[in-house]
C-alpha cells in the first residue's frame, strides 16, 4: 500500500476520532494502568510477589511443571539431586543479566544446597523433591541490587511498595515479551462498598468479590473471574481447651453442620461443600469424604449441655455469617456455640487456609501444617491411595472440620481483556502480564 494512501487514512482517522464508537478488537493494545482493589484477607505480598519474582519452573493449568527460568532439567534416581539449564537472555528488573550464581545464591538454604556446574545449576535437596516444588513461590529467584532493593525477573517490577498499596511497572526486557500493561496499581483494605463504587465510577478495573457479591457485580456490567476452589474454610479446635479435647463432641459438631444449606444460601452455590481437606479438582478423591448432615447421630454423641466458643476473623463478614449459621446447626443437636471474635479464648476457630497450587501431596502437607495438624512424614508414596489414607487419618479425630472449598472471585470492567492466558488462573494466581486494556465505550 503506498504511503500516500496512508496519509489520507490519517486525515480520516482525525475526523472520526471524536465520534466513533469503540469496539473490541482481537489483537491487544499496549499501554495503560490496571487499577486493582482488594479487601482483606488476601495479603498484598501473595498477590504481587509472583508477578515480580519467578521460579525455575511454573505449573500450568493442569498442574504440570513447565519451563520458566529453567528451560530443561534432569534428576538423579533418588529425586534429591536436580540439574537445571537456565533460560538465556533473562534480565533482572535493573537490567543485569540473570546469572547462574544469582540462582544458586537465591535457592540455597531451607534444606537445599545449590552450586554451579558448567552452565547448569545443581540443587542438592535433603529429601526427595518433586519438580513441582521448584514452582513454589517461596523458591523464587531474586537478587539484591547495590541499593539493597530486591530485583526479580518477572513481567512486572515493584515500582512502589507501601503497606496497603503497590505499584507494579512493566519489565521492558521481560524474556517472554513486555507486558501489554504499562503498570498495575493495587490498593488493599477497600471495603466491598468502596470497591463497587469505584468499579461503577470507573476508578477501579478489577475488584475482589465475595460469593454473595457476584450478582451485583454482574448487574454493574462486570465480567466475573473465578478460580477453582482454592481456599479451605474449616473449623479448627484449639488443643488443650477442655471441651475441645472431647472427641465425641468434636464429631457431634461435625455431623451437625448443614453444609448444603449454607452453600446454597450464604455462598450462593459459589464453592463446594468440603468433607476433606483437598478440593476435588486437586485430589480427585474428595468425593469419598461425606459432607452430609446427620443430626440424629450427632444428638446421640452429645452428653450434657456443652458450651463452646467459636472465633472468627472480625474483618471477614462472610466468615462471621457462616459462624452464626454453624451455631444454629449446633444448637439443634444440643451444642451451644458462642460466636466470638476474641481468638485467644476460643475453643475453636473458623479459619481460611489457602491451598498451595502444588502437587497434591505437597499441598496436603502445607495445608495440614497451616491447620496445626500433625505432619505427614509417614506418607511413604505419592500414590493416590496413600494420599487418601493420609488425609483420612488427619481428619479422623475431627480436630479440623472442613466446611467449604471457596474460589477466588473478581469482577473486571469490560475494558479488561485477556490475551493468551486468563488474568486469573484456575489455581487462583494472577497472570496480569497477559491482560490489556481496551478503550472505553463513550
Amino acid at each position: 500500500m503506498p504511503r500516500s494512501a496512508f496519509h489520507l487514512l490519517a486525515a480520516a482517522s482525525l475526523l472520526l476520532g471524536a465520534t466513533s464508537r469503540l469496539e473490541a478488537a482481537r489483537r491487544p493494545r499496549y499501554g495503560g494502568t490496571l487499577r486493582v482493589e482488594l479487601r482483606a484477607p488476601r495479603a498484598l505480598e501473595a498477590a504481587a510477589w509472583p508477578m515480580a519474582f519467578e521460579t525455575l519452573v511454573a505449573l500450568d493449568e493442569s498442574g504440570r511443571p513447565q519451563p520458566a527460568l529453567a528451560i530443561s532439567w534432569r534428576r538423579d534416581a533418588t529425586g534429591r539431586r536436580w540439574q537445571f539449564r537456565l533460560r538465556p537472555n533473562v534480565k533482572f528488573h535493573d537490567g543485569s543479566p540473570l546469572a547462574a550464581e544469582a540462582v544458586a545464591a537465591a535457592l540455597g538454604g531451607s534444606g537445599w544446597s545449590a552450586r554451579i556446574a558448567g552452565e547448569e545449576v545443581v540443587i542438592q535437596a535433603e529429601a526427595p523433591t518433586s519438580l513441582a516444588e521448584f514452582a513454589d513461590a517461596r523458591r523464587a529467584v531474586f537478587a539484591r541490587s547495590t541499593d539493597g532493593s530486591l530485583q526479580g525477573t518477572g513481567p512486572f517490577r515493584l515500582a512502589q511498595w507501601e503497606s496497603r498499596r503497590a505499584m507494579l511497572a512493566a519489565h521492558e526486557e521481560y524474556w517472554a515479551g513486555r507486558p501489554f500493561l504499562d503498570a498495575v496499581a493495587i490498593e488493599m483494605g477497600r471495603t466491598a462498598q468502596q470497591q463497587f463504587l469505584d468499579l461503577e465510577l470507573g476508578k477501579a478495573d478489577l475488584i475482589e468479590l465475595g460469593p454473595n457479591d457476584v450478582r451485583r457485580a454482574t448487574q454493574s456490567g462486570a465480567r466475573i473471574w473465578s478460580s477453582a476452589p482454592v481456599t479451605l474454610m474449616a473449623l479448627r479446635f484449639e488443643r488443650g481447651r477442655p471441651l475441645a479435647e472431647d472427641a465425641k463432641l468434636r464429631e457431634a459438631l461435625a455431623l451437625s453442620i448443614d453444609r448444603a444449606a449454607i452453600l446454597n444460601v450464604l455462598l450462593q452455590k459459589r464453592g463446594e461443600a468440603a468433607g476433606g481437606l483437598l478440593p476435588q479438582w486437586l485430589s480427585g478423591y474428595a468425593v469419598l469424604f461425606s459432607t452430609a448432615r446427620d443430626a440424629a447421630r450427632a444428638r446421640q454423641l452429645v452428653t450434657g449441655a456443652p458450651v463452646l466458643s467459636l472465633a472468627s476473623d472480625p474483618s471477614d463478614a462472610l466468615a462471621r455469617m457462616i459462624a452464626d449459621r454453624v451455631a444454629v446447626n449446633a444448637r439443634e443437636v444440643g451444642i451451644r456455640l458462642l460466636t466470638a471474635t476474641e481468638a485467644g479464648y476460643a475453643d475453636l476457630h473458623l479459619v481460611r487456609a489457602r491451598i498451595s497450587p502444588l502437587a497434591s501431596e505437597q499441598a496436603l502437607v502445607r495445608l495440614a501444617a497451616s491447620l496445626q495438624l500433625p505432619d505427614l512424614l509417614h506418607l511413604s508414596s505419592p500414590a493416590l491411595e496413600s494420599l487418601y489414607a493420609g488425609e483420612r487419618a488427619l481428619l479422623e479425630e475431627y480436630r479440623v472440620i472442613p466446611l467449604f472449598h471457596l474460589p477466588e472471585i473478581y469482577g473486571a470492567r469490560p475494558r479488561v481483556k485477556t490475551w493468551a492466558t486468563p488474568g486469573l488462573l484456575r489455581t487462583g494466581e494472577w497472570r496480569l502480564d497477559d491482560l490489556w486494556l481496551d478503550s472505553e465505550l463513550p
Partner: protein
Amino acid sequence: MLRLILVLFSLLAPPEDSVLELARKIAAALGPREAVALTVRNASSLAAAEVAGVRREIESQLRARGFTLASDAPATVAVTLAENWQGGVWIAEIRHGDKREVVMVAPTRPRERAAATPMGIDRQLILEQPDPILDAVALESLLVVLEPTEVVFYERKEARWERRQAIALPQRVWPRDLRGRLAIEGDSFEAFLPGLACKGKVQPEPALQCEESDAPWPIGAPLKKGSNTFEAEKLPPFYSTARVGEYSLAAGVDGRTQWFDNATAATGSFGGWGSDIAAVETGCGGGRQVLATRPSDANETDAVQAYEIAGRQPVGVSPALEFSGPVTAMWASGPASVVAITRDLKTGQYAAFRISLTCSR
C-alpha cells in the same frame, strides 16, 4: 462414514490399561471368586457412552477373574469415575461386612476432539504442531514455516511434509503478541519480524541472514518495534490492511475497520471485524473480497468470513468458517487465498490453513 464411526469409537473407548489396573486392584481386595454387586457412578466429564464402556470393561474383567456379578451380593464394589486437574481419578470402594478398602487408578484423559468443520468457504490444513507458527508458505514440494525462534523447511514426501532443516533466528526479547511474515519469490525468501529483516535462499540449500531493520513489510508499512501494530506516517497504529478495488481498509487498534477512497478521500469506518483482514482476488461477485476474523477475546473460538464492500459497508458473502480457537495470524498468500494460523483452545496446537473462496456457493 464407517471410518468416521470407527474414529469416533476409538476416541470414546476408555483407556484399557486403566480398566485392567482397576479390575486387578479390585480383585486383589476381594476374596477369591466372590459374588459382588457393582455400581458405577460418573463424577467426571466423561460422556455417558464412555462411562458405559468403562462399566462393561470392568464387568468383563471381573468375570474373567472368576467373580460373579449379582446386585444382592454381600460384597459391594462402588466405582466412582472422578477427575482432578491432571486427569482422571477412578476410585473403587470395596465393602465386605465391616471391611472397607479404597483403591484408585489415574487414567490418562482421552484426546480432545476437534470441532466440526462447516462448509462454504474452504480451508486446507497445511501443518499442525505444538510450537507457535507466525507464517507458513507452501510451494509445490517445499513448505517454509516461520516460528518465533527459527525458520523451518519441510519437503513433501508422498502426501505429507517432512522436516528437512531449520535455521535459527537471532535471539531477541520479542513482543508478547509476536507477529512475523514470510515472502517467497523464486528461490529467495524474506522473513519479517519486529525490528528484524532476514533474507535467505530456499534452494539448493536453505540459508538465512538477518539484520536489524525497520523496513516495510509486504503490506507496505513497518511493524512498530516492540509492538504488534504497523505504523505509517501520520497514521494511527493498525493491525492489518486489505485493498479492495478503489478502497483500502485498515483494522485499527480501536477495534474498528477504517476505509478510504484514494480518488475522493471520502472515508468512514465500521465495526464487527477482528484485527486480521486480508484481501483475495477471486473473480467472483465483485471480483475482490476481504477475509476478516471476528472481534472478541483471544481465548474464544474464532471464524473467518468473506465480505464485499457495498455502500461503504461490509456485506458477508460467505458463511463463517469456524475454528476451534483464535486466529493468531492471517496473511495473503496468493491472489486467491490466505494463510490463517490458529491456536486450538483445547489442545493448544497451532495450525496453518490455506483458506480459499469458491465461486460455486
